[in-house]
């Protein structure tokens, strides 16, 4: 591929310049625009999931409430979990993977820009597919874990679970495609000099997460495929009468489900590992140990799944092994906590909004981590399992951990993405109300749980000692509604009214801050050669990085013929004027994703007995999908 685009092709780049219009978004292959799409879509689903939580908490505010029916309640808690896990936290992380990884490693895009667009469109269509049914009261109602045989035809005859099975299958493909892309990107597109041990910690944690995705999604794909076959084609995988084991689904699900927990938290860990050094004006403490502990968490994460199943009676040997592994995994996690504290220790701390969210993550995640270690012990777990104590635990790690970390990331990177700051005082209101509302919602659940309140019940009788705690939780949820509304308004308004931010508004040390905000489409006009973990601090404040390893003493010395010294780029050019080839905009990933999703949705017609329509749609969708792939793969990228 020549570095000079043929004149006839240059028009594609002109089209790129028109950054508005829905068609430009449908055809985009720019990792930053795809990251933006992920961010907006995931925030929308975050609000949907939050709304579901509000309805749940309203129903539970007082004993014997009749705000929603039992069936609606089942749909609400199922969709709340499914939405938050698959449509909010994972894609919010994906938004940062997309936006930040290429910028942090000094690349111009991801390794496969069109595959990246495909991942997003599959996610969007899958998200719509699984969310819309709730408007018609046919949403999935078997819990986010969808335990079979409860979710087989025998016990769930309606179409509800069909949407869940097919929807998760679709979303899994999106995550897998994205993971292969980011693995390749991180391995192969790092700027000269950026060794693995010089990568920013967010990129490192994302790297670990991509491997978790690649290895954890196949087991759920298979478990879902079995369920799909049972539901649509009468196989016997989960049919107890045919001799099936009721634990098969649980095992396959949690083989996926536990690594999934780390898929949700590690990106947030990565984000706060960028925020804390920046606002402490110190390099991250114990970088190597942070990397190794991340890898340890990822690896051990595959050996602890059965701790979700202590109550099913696996026997003392299995219980002991999984209990021990679970306690073991607390060690690398604890190491991270101490390293973050040590990063702040004697630093020049600036309590900005992102910093507050990052510190909140450390504190709240620690609480959730400690209750997690409590139920790593099978005897304790037998008392706690399926009670609100567990609900309290995983909201402390997922909300207190993942969501706090993601908010830290949003406040930190909003200036990079938009060129403007989020309003600081609105941000403070958001933070404090969020912090108070969160604790008021979930801390009382430790008590209602310990007093025996089971999860997933749609109402309860008075006089069991749960009334006060439930009321507190509900009040907390309404406070969260207020705080989230403040955030939404701030997010929308600051795009045009926020204070202008330059290249490096926070005085951070990594490459993404060396280029304009928002970054030009080509990211870096000249690729820098990196000589340490904080190249920008080397340039602007060498004293800060004097204590860490450099490949050569002078950051202006260049050993790689492909690169220039680390520098700040303040001017905006066009990719064309710089002679940088950019991928063409293309709608092929969009239509290929659409064809694939229609292929899956064809199966729904089988539920209503229209087998010939089902066959037509599935085969037609498959043919369109394959021809879409051919057309995509045979057209040039740039």
């Amino acid at each position, binding site marked *: 591929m020549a570095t*000079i685009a043929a004149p006839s092709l240059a028009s594609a780049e002109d089209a790129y310049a028109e950054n508005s219009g829905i068609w430009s978004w449908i055809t985009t292959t720019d990792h930053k625009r795809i990251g933006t799409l992920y961010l907006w879509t995931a925030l929308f689903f975050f609000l949907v999931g939050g709304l579901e939580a509000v309805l749940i908490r309203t129903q539970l505010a007082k004993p014997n409430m009749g705000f929603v029916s039992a069936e609606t309640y089942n749909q609400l808690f199922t969709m709340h979990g499914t939405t938050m896990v698959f449509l909010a936290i994972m894609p919010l992380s994906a938004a940062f993977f997309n936006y930040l990884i290429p910028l942090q490693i000094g690349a111009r895009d991801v390794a496969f820009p069109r595959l990246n667009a495909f991942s997003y469109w599959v996610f969007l269509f899958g998200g719509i597919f699984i969310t819309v049914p709730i408007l018609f009261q046919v949403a999935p109602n078997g819990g986010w874990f969808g335990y079979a045989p409860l979710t087989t035809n025998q016990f769930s005859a309606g179409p509800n679970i069909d949407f869940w099975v097919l929807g998760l299958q679709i979303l899994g493909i999106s995550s897998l495609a994205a993971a292969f892309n980011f693995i390749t990107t991180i391995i192969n597109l790092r700027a000269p000099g950026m060794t693995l041990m010089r990568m920013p910690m967010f990129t490192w944690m994302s790297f670990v997460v991509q491997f978790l995705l690649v290895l954890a999604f196949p*087991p759920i794909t298979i478990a879902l*495929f079995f369920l799909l076959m049972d539901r649509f*084609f009468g196989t*016997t995988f989960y049919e107890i009468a045919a001799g099936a084991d009721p634990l098969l689904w649980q095992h396959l699900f949690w083989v996926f489900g536990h690594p999934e927990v780390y898929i949700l938290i590690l990106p947030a860990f990565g984000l706060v590992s960028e925020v804390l050094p920046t606002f402490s004006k110190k390099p991250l403490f114990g970088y190597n140990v942070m990397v190794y502990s991340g890898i340890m968490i990822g690896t051990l994460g595959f050996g602890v799944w059965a701790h979700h199943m202590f109550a099913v009676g696996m026997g003392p040997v299995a219980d002991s092994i999984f209990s021990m592994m679970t306690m073991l995994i607390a060690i690398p996690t604890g190491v991270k906590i101490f390293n973050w504290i040590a990063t702040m220790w004697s630093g020049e701390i600036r309590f900005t909004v992102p910093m507050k969210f990052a510190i909140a993550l450390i504190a709240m995640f620690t609480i959730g981590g400690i209750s997690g270690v409590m139920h790593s012990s099978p005897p304790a777990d037998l008392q706690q399992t399926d009670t609100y104590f567990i609900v309290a635990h995983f909201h402390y790690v997922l909300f207190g951990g993942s969501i706090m970390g993601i908010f830290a990331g949003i406040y930190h990177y909003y200036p990079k993405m938009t060129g403007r700051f989020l309003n600081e005082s609105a941000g403070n209101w958001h933070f404090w109300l969020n912090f108070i509302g969160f604790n008021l919602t979930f801390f009382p659940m430790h008590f209602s749980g310990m007093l025996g309140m089971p999860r997933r019940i749609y109402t309860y009788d008075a006089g069991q000692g749960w009334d006060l705690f439930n009321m507190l939780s509900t009040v907390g949820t309404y406070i969260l509604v207020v705080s989230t509304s403040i955030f939404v308004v701030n997010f929308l308004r600051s795009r045009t009214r926020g204070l202008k931010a330059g290249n490096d508004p926070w005085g951070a040390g990594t490459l993404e801050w060396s280029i304009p905000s928002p970054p030009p489409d080509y990211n870096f006009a000249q690729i820098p050669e990196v000589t340490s973990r904080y190249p920008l601090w080397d340039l602007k404040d060498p004293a800060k990085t004097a204590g860490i390893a450099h490949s050569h003493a002078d950051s202006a010395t260049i050993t790689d013929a492909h690169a220039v010294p680390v520098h700040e780029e303040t001017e905006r050019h066009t990719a064309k004027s710089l*002679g940088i080839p950019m991928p063409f905009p293309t709608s092929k990933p969009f239509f290929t994703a659409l064809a694939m999703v229609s292929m899956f949705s064809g199966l729904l017609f089988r539920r209503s007995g229209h087998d010939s329509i089902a066959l037509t749609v599935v085969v037609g969708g498959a043919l369109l999908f*394959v021809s879409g792939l051919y057309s995509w793969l045979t057209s040039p990228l*740039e």
Partner: protein
Amino acid sequence: MSSHAAAAHGAHGAGHDDGHAHHHYTTTGLEHRKIAIWAFIGSECMLFASLISTYLIYKGRSIVGPFPHTEWVNEAGVVFKPILNIPVTSASTFVLLMSSLAMVLALQAVQLKDTPLPDGANWWTRAQRSSQGWLLMTALLGMTFLGFQAFEFASFVHEGLTIKTNLFGSTFYTLTGFHGAHVTAGVLWLFTLLFIDRKRGLGPKDELIVDIAALYWHFVDVVWIAIFTLVYLIQ
């Protein structure tokens, strides 16, 4: 190739001198797609691990027959013989192994395309240069394997084992069917390469696209090596 490739050349690179200008810079010097296919293969390991685990977990748990390795008599006194046909599957296993051999030779033929043949090269040396021949042979052997599988499925159904019959039927057809679907995708991929080869000729510059197809094909073969032992031979 990716946009990054030019990462290095970027601002100055346009129209630059070097014969390497077309060669995109990557950190490791390796091709993106080759890294991606290996990551994909790693993921496929977990996919087939889940399928194989389920097959083994449910092994011997079916309540009604037919069974893979043992005879079964139903309530009406009808005798169902052990259903697995080892001779036929041994033949199809051999066919798939040979397709891997043909595939690796196809890749070699593409790599050697521009290397001049030594004088008086024997038939084998010359045969090794035929990328189209080896690609076609790989695809045909793959189709033969699929033919064996179709025959196997049809005769099993005829003998009373469907995907709904029992746990063995469900797990067996799903596991081998997943593998068969992978072979089918591979055959389609091979015919695509063959088409390109006939249209414009595949040479050393195309090594990558043949290499990734070959890696996929061999992986599908090694999965069958595991399935053959775990499903067919172990009783």
